[in-house]
């Protein structure tokens, strides 16, 4: 057992820190630190900076443009980026589709799509969920019928994150209704500008436009956009989900959010003392800190066990998804509590860049309550935490 980073890894950490100090735009880091709204341009700008350094697709193999990092290096990068308030890399193209194409795509697909992911030509979104197919994803109905060189797609996807920005959507579609539900699903890449694709916003409880409904009416998709084999899409989808869930542990993000919470608890006062010294609040903070430390080590253990390449055993990635999201939710909950009465006011414009109205209450108050509400999503998406618990016991019980 050796919990500590090697001298090489320490040196790598310094390299990452120096890069972040040098290249992460202060403007963007400040927006992330203060939970302001990021624009598409902000995210794309950061992706481009990372790509220039060769660190954007940091879990891709070297031959496809990845940096060839070890598991520890990737973890160091994630944590340092989050602590420096870098935006999270938008996962759909680079973290989700990329690995699927690398493993299951044709040579032509890899040659065409991977460079476009790297240089940001295509903004991707994920078309898995449907109104009737959430946890029970395999019951999806959006159909793709072969017609010569094309598939004709009809149906509806929903909850499509940042679909309003997307050039492309990777979809699970039904290509067969025979046999088991899972065996009639295919993995299809669809251009959002194709006639018959319509995107409608869904406003979330915090008032933000983050997700969308995507409707398909007789959308003609070139057959060459089928990934792998017809009716084998479920295998690819599951492969992708292990990447999605491991990313959802979000250790670095939680460390940064916890640091922020500690600062707030120091600056808020209760009964003439810092809130952080109130016995009840201190206990809440301590429990959280202990859990977070446990998560950090568990995350490293899972990463180490899965080796470089990054895909973890299903029940372990399920555990990380649960712990990581619940801890993050608890951090946002405690941050909300820390504000006392000032959790209530909400001036939406205060989250825009360049807003210069006086803050209401402490200057860090504006985004706190909406962050808390928005992060309720963490235990719902990426496979709900109930479903994750089913996965764990199914694997352990073998009943």
């Amino acid at each position, binding site marked *: 057992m050796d919990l500590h980073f090697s001298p090489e890894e320490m040196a790598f950490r310094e390299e990452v820190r120096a890069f972040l100090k040098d290249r992460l735009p202060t403007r963007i880091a400040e927006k992330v630190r203060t939970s302001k709204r990021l624009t598409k341009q902000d995210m794309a700008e950061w992706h481009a900076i990372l790509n220039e350094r060769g660190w954007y697709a940091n879990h891709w193999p070297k031959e496809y443009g990845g940096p060839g990092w070890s598991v520890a290096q990737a973890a160091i990068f994630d944590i340092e980026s989050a602590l420096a308030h870098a935006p999270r890399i938008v996962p759909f193209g680079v973290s989700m589709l990329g690995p699927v194409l690398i493993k299951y795509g044709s040579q032509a697909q890899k040659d065409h799509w991977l460079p476009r992911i790297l240089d940001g030509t295509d903004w991707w979104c994920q078309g898995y969920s449907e109104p009737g197919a959430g946890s029970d994803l395999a019951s999806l109905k959006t159909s793709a019928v072969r017609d010569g060189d094309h598939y004709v797609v009809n149906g509806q996807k929903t909850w499509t994150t940042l679909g309003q920005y997307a050039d492309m959507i990777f979809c699970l579609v039904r290509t067969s209704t025979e046999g088991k539900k899972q065996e009639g699903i295919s993995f299809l890449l669809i251009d959002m500008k194709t006639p018959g694709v319509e995107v409608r916003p869904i406003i*979330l409880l915090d008032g933000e436009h983050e997700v969308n409904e995507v409707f398909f009416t007789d959308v003609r998709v070139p057959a060459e956009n089928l990934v792998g084999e017809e009716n084998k899409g479920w295998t690819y989808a599951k492969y992708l989900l292990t990447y999605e869930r491991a990313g959802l542990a979000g250790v670095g993000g939680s460390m940064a959010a916890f640091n922020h919470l500690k600062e707030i608890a120091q600056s808020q006062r209760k009964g003439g003392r810092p809130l952080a010294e109130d*016995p009840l609040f201190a206990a809440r903070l301590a429990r959280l800190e202990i859990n977070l430390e446990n998560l950090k080590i568990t995350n490293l253990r899972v990463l180490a066990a899965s080796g470089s390449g990054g895909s973890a055993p299903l029940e372990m990635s399920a555990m990380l998804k649960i712990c990581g999201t619940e801890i993050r939710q608890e951090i946002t909950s405690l941050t909300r*509590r820390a504000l*006392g009465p*000032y959790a209530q006011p*909400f001036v939406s414009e205060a989250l825009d860049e360049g807003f210069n109205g006086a803050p*209401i209450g402490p200057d860090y108050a504006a985004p706190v309550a909406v962050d808390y509400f928005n992060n309720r999503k963490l235990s719902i*998406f990426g496979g709900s935490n109930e479903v994750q618990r089913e996965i764990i016991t199914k694997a352990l019980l073998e009943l």
Partner: protein
Amino acid sequence: MYFHHSEDRQMLADMLGRYLQQRYPFDIRNKISASPEGWSRTHWAELAELGVVGALFGEGAGGFGGTGFDIAAVFEGLGKALVVEPFLGTLMAGQALAMAAGKQDALLAEVIAGTTLLAFAHEEPQSRYDVSDVETQALPNSAGWALQGCKAVVPQIEAADRILVSARIAGAPGDEAGIGLFLVDKAAARLRGYPMVDGGRGGELVLDNTPATLVAKDGFPLIEQAIAAGIVALAWEAVAVMDVLKTTTLDYLRTRRQFGVPIGKFQALQHRMATVALEIELARSAAISAADALGQDRRTRERAVSAAKYTIGRVGTLVAEESIQMHGGIGMTWELPLSHYAKRLTMIGHQLGDEDHHLERFIALGHA
């Protein structure tokens, strides 16, 4: 022992329920909530006309209610419809005025008639629920009094015509003695209004040599009792909101199908729903106990009130989070009323003392 409302109170509750169902459906509520004013004068006038404001005050104050259970019946009704109008401030300010030895009858009559609205501005930016932490200063002058200081996150303060303000006449922040209560005209005050995350509006009150009329020199006991009434109101509002969340979630568990069955068939959700239902009943009992204690001696009253606010805070978070979770993605949407009920319930936890504050206070009162 009898756990039902009296006939009069039940009639009031039924009437209020009918009115809100017909005149204040959810889409109207959201429109009012997001409007520049953040409340509706029309509904206020009509509800006052129906006696809903009068029910908050005793006969001595010109009303026909005013007990803990009257407050309970009204706020339970308001909570069901997620009403944003300034009932809480009116209740707390009005109750304090009614206790302040006479002279306020004319004002209270206008309040009950719905023509004058009140706000209760007591908490300050630094006070974090500590009732005696009043820094705002009251200084006598030739015309009467002038106030200097700041009041924080006052619900619907812009709607008020008169604002009841606490300010220190003597002593230091933290002293119970020396806190006076004053009336300030909205026209004379500097307000900074803003939307609230759970709907409606709130505001900061800046007092800068602001003229004020003295209502009570020894205000602390009045403030404490007004807050106790406010907590009973919030507790019942919360219970109503929880009931709505429970009903809605049960409906969803019955109708949403995944894996070929209603999701309510999954034991993982059944157990969680059972916990939610059980905790709501405990919260309701705490709210009953607080309503009952409102007319009792200080220690009994304040312990019951703190117990209720602690319970509502703890259970409220649970119920809000679980209702969203059991709905899945749809529970996260603006379009569904559910998310607005969940937000309101969560924010009730931030008003008049949070869970931790009242737990500590309950302990302290036990030692007293």
